[in-house]
């Protein structure tokens, strides 16, 4: 079984500032890692994924994340945020074989202020 911990429930940040949303996971098997974004009253949209290969992955809307196996982390970063980035961000993990259902973290509310 896997688990995901998002260390910050809310992250307030000013527009054009950098941001990092933290995610740690635990698993006894190899995993895939994901970040999803949920805008108010909408479904989930995939921001980026790590399946294998380069540990630095780039996603949509200028976001990137780095997979750190030794620290079991997958932190999400953006060098300069916009008001439109205000949303709920979920880190998720799945096994890399078998059923591959997702286990989600508790979410981080990113609040971008002008």
């Amino acid at each position, binding site marked *: 079984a896997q688990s995901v911990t998002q260390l910050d429930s809310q992250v307030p940040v000013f527009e054009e500032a950098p941001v990092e949303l933290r995610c740690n996971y635990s698993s006894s098997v190899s995993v895939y890692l994901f970040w999803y974004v949920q805008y108010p009253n909408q479904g989930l949209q995939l921001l980026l994924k790590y399946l294998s290969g380069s540990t630095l992955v780039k996603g949509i809307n200028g976001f990137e994340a780095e997979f750190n196996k030794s620290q079991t982390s997958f932190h999400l970063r953006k060098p300069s945020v916009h008001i439109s980035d205000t949303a709920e961000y979920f880190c998720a993990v799945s096994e890399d074989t078998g*059923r591959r259902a997702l286990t989600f973290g508790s979410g981080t509310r990113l609040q971008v202020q002008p």
Partner: protein
Amino acid sequence: SAVISQKPSRDICQRGTSLTIQCQVDSQVTMMFWYRQQPGQSLTLIATANQGSEATYESGFVIDKFPISRPNLTFSTLTVSNLSPEDSSIYLCSVEDRRQGIQYFGAGTRLSVL
């Protein structure tokens, strides 16, 4: 990418009734997943639905309360039975593009139980 149509988008139901949610995908998929997102919380997997077999339920979810049908490779339904206010949540279906290792989500069904 898969396009998922989920119906209804929202509903208000009376205590003791049932609601059936439909999930239609624009391509054939092996596995479909149903998740619940309680107010202000993260997503929790309810069950995995494979075509031609019984759904696999997660701990805390039972078939009598959440019966699932999966009649073909592009369609599934989730019924939430004997509704109580505690069932007020967003219910989401998802499918996996196994080749890409990505799960795509429907827009969700927002259920309110009075």
